[in-house]
């Protein structure tokens, strides 16, 4: 399928963190979105791109937020989410072979049905398997089981005129991990799986971040307690979560550590350690809520039109200092900064520092610099970016050593001599952009030092703290996380994100500024069952059904009601071979229990 209307292209190219519209206009355009259904389709798009001198940007679910799919050359966005078949699974060997466009949520659902489970999975459960391998790779349970690449047995890579299968031991394997599709397209992935294991989350509160980090240090030293997942939430992060909770059952203003055990025999030593380190065990419902929130990292997006920040891999011993200094920094500029850290091994943690902003305000521009400053502060504490994308291009040397970088660049030249795959990013630099970003980064370092030169700025920013009063409209509050796509019955049949909640919200946003809209797209907005599933999974917890009704009346007045299209749609999905299975698959997801849990 090829999608080439502006709106569809914008939708597929949209990322969690959006560029300011001025910058967007300066960047090259995406010509169209191409959705391959099989390997042959991929080869077709390669040759098409070569003929038309276009480049190819592979896209999973578009949830990374680092600018990985931002075009720096005129390109075709290749949406791989239709390559989502489960090809084979071996219950004995405990492996599963999937196509890379499969979403983790779907994979987890499939495994659950066969009483199997994943070792690790990303917090954005609605991203794709290939997408996670090509970007971050650290998520839930990474503390014990490590980076996703440790759990991949082999991958299959497609590049023009050739396919190759690489096992983990193959020296070329590493060139496809975390490289954002610059070397070729990963089409199939063979993953290790396991039988489900019972686990239990514990949430422990501490008075200060010093105490919390001291507890973490002790925990690292301990040999008998073996958690599978450890996360640290600073008091601001918990405070943000309180916005979603009833005030009577909110988190206290304390630092929190969430850890998950699979070996219950070690529970006793854990409790001892908590007591020794003066931790307070949280109530069960708060623990359960926070544990459930792991899938909704951007749930505060509902209250803020934009969330900025940085994702950094930091030595865990420096976590305390980093938090202290970023807090001071945030206070200077009036930011409501919150920090969450997930430990990925005994020495390192992925730290998410987030603060709300408003893209319509002047302060937003400075906020973009400030988010850079956070990375700069991190680098002082030996931190390095978690992903590169475009934002972190200036920090490339923090991630790769000179030698390593040369290796990657050489491999890229060898494998992709025409520079078709996701060009002008880390391994095939475009000097103009690189220097522009470098300059911006250098500017931001000045901010982070809070030199007297920027004092006036800090004053201005303090007056515009970027906080919002009241709730945002739905189209502004959409976090673009893609949860709504996997549960959408209309998407099951139509396979175009424009008919999912996320797509329709963009459509609504578009209608605010322009009345021009292709009729085909207007008709698509009516293909909705009003099933409420998008509401159930929405991490911004938007009330969407009234929005659809509003949108439909608006479109009906302009384009009329596509009665025949609707009838055809109803027939189509009722006859869809996977429809029944699809309906049964989220029994737990949207029943009342789930709702209650969310509204504690």
């Amino acid at each position, binding site marked *: 399928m090829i999608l080439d209307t502006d709106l569809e292209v914008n939708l597929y190219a949209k990322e969690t963190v959006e560029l300011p519209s001025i910058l967007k206009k300066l960047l090259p355009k995406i010509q169209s979105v191409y959705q391959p259904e099989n390997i042959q389709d991929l080869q077709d798009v390669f040759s098409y791109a070569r003929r038309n001198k276009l480049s190819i940007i592979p896209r999973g679910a578009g949830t990374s937020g680092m600018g990985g799919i931002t075009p720096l050359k005129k390109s075709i966005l290749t949406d791989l989410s239709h390559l989502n078949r489960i090809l084979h699974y071996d219950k004995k060997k405990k492996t599963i072979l999937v196509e890379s466009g499969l979403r983790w949520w779907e994979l987890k659902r499939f495994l659950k049905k066969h009483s199997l489970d994943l070792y690790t999975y990303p917090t954005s459960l609605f991203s794709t398997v290939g997408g996670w391998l090509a970007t971050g790779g650290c998520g839930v349970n990474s503390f014990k089981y490590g980076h996703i690449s440790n759990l991949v047995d082999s991958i299959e890579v497609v590049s023009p005129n050739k396919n190759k299968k690489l096992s983990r031991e193959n020296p070329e394997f590493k060139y496809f991990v975390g490289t954002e599709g610059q070397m070729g397209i990963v089409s199939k992935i063979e993953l290790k799986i396991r039988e489900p294991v019972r686990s239990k989350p514990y949430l422990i509160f501490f008075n200060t971040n010093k105490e919390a980090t001291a507890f973490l240090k002790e925990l690292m030293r301990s040999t008998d307690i073996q958690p599978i997942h450890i996360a640290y939430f600073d008091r601001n992060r918990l405070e943000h979560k309180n916005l979603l909770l009833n005030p009577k059952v909110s988190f206290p203003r304390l630092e929190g550590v969430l850890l998950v055990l699979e070996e219950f025999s070690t529970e006793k030593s854990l409790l001892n350690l908590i007591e020794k380190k003066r931790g307070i065990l949280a109530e069960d419902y708060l623990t359960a809520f926070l544990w459930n929130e792991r899938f909704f990292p951007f749930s505060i997006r509902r209250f803020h039109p934009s969330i900025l920040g940085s994702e950094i891999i930091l030595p865990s011993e420096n976590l305390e200092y980093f938090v202290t200094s970023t807090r001071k920094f945030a206070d200077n500029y009036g930011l409501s900064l919150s920090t969450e850290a997930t430990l990925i091994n005994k020495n390192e943690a992925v730290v998410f520092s987030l603060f709300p902003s408003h893209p319509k305000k002047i302060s937003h521009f400075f906020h973009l610099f400030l988010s850079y400053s956070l990375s700069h502060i991190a680098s002082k504490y030996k931190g390095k970016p978690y992903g590169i994308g475009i934002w972190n291009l200036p920090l490339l040397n923090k991630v790769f050593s000179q030698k390593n970088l040369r290796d990657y660049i050489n491999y890229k030249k060898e494998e992709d001599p025409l520079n078709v795959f996701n060009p002008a990013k880390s391994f095939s630099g475009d000097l103009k952009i690189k220097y522009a970003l470098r300059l911006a980064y250098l500017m931001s370092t000045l901010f982070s030092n809070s030199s007297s030169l920027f004092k006036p700025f800090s004053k201005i920013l303090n007056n515009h703290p970027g906080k919002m009063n009241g709730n945002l409209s739905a189209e502004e509050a959409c976090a673009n996380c893609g949860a709504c796509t996997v549960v959408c*019955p209309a998407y099951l049949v139509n396979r175009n994100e424009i008919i999912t909640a996320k797509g329709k919200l963009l459509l609504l946003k578009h209608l605010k500024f322009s009345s021009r809209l292709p009729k085909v797209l207007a008709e698509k907005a009516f293909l909705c*069952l009003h099933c409420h599933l998008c509401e159930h999974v929405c991490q911004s917890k938007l009330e969407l059904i009234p929005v659809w009704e509003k949108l439909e009346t608006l479109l009906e007045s302009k384009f009329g009601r596509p009665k025949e299209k*609707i009838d055809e749609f*109803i027939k189509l999905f*009722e006859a869809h071979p996977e429809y029944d299975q699809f309906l*049964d698959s989220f*029994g737990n997801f*949207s029943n009342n229990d789930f709702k209650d849990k969310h509204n504690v």
Partner: protein
Amino acid sequence: MYKRYHIDTSPAKLASTNIGTFRIIRDENCLNCGRCISLCIYDVHERDRNDPRKMSDPLSPCCKNCFSCIQNCPQQALKMIRNEEFEKLGNTYWTPQIIQTIWNEAEEGEIPVYGAGYRGPFKGTGFDAIWTDMSEIVRPTRDGIHGREYIATSVDLGRKLPWIQNFENLILPNSFEIQIPMLLDTHPLGLNCNTIILAILKAAHQLGTLAFLDIKNYMDELKPYLRSIALRCSFEELSQHDSALLKKVRLIEIVLSQKFSHAKLEQTLKHLKEHNPAALISLGTTDSYITEEILKYFHEERADVLHLYADSSGKSFEGNLFISDLIRQFHVQFVQNGNRDEITIIGTGGIAAAEHVPKIIICGADAAVLDLSLLVAMGCRVCKVCETEHCPVEIDRLEPELAKQRIINMICAWRDQLLEILSAMGIRDVRRLRGEVGRAMFYEEIEKESFEFIFDK
């Protein structure tokens, strides 16, 4: 040409009877996925006509409680609750279930099906204390009740000759055949409403049976149906009316009041014989005891039909007997006296369901008279107030054709069920069922047999 008796049914829907046993409720978390539509074979679930993406409200009255939609809903969004409106129907005898069954029968004319099986008590009072024998239950499945093997449902009203004494000079007694062992009463609950009378009478006419009509309610409109009228009157009314009417009807009933004078009855009977010697004479009584003097009228061929009345719940007006017991008592008495064939016994009151007809016949009646059930077929809810002005379903304003069709549908369904029972008993003629107590079990008798030796000592 031989033509098999057949009742023509056609669907006759009535909006006021759309009261389901349960109510299906669609919760807000419904996905509008449409699975319930494909599962429901009773068309309870449909998509909204104006917006097919959404589901319309469930049509609870169509629901047969199979729970298929409830069990298979992917979101558990459907639930079933008791319908209060349904539970308010009727009274302890005319239970909501009975009323609804009649409504369903009247709508389609088909044998009712209870989706989730019979979960009621094993035994009750009245007709529910009688169990019919179905030992040859395999029979109807072989060929169907309307199959090759014809089962007769016609019965004779009037006397039968015990034997023929003289072939040369054969005098046949007064008698005629009605096609079903059911007569109708045009004045259920004593309602005198022209539309109701007309509907019931027309139905009786079409079914080939009789309908009782109070003489005071006769109107010229009813003339085409004279042959289907069983004229009911008291002594006084008889003398007041012109004899032209009396000459044309086939059955005349004299209602015996509490203390009537035999002299007057003698005189009346004589008067009737003179005007219409062919008509059957019925004596209607609410008594549970019959004197020798009354029996004499039957013996002397001056009366043919004994019509026993009970109230709408089957209780006799005197003696607190149930209609089936009352009839059984007379039947046994006449058999013992050797004069059973001189008297046709019919009973009114409490006939509320299809199986009550064979049960009352087993107890010894020749035919049953339907009264309130006809009204229910027309949509009556057996509420307490019964005045046409205050009727919640405005029964008097019902279109007579629709009302007639509903009655015919109900009687067709009842006859079909009678055929089922006869066929399951291996009986080919309903006349053979009369007094066949061997084809039934009576709870009281079984109880007595089983426990007598303990309690009677």
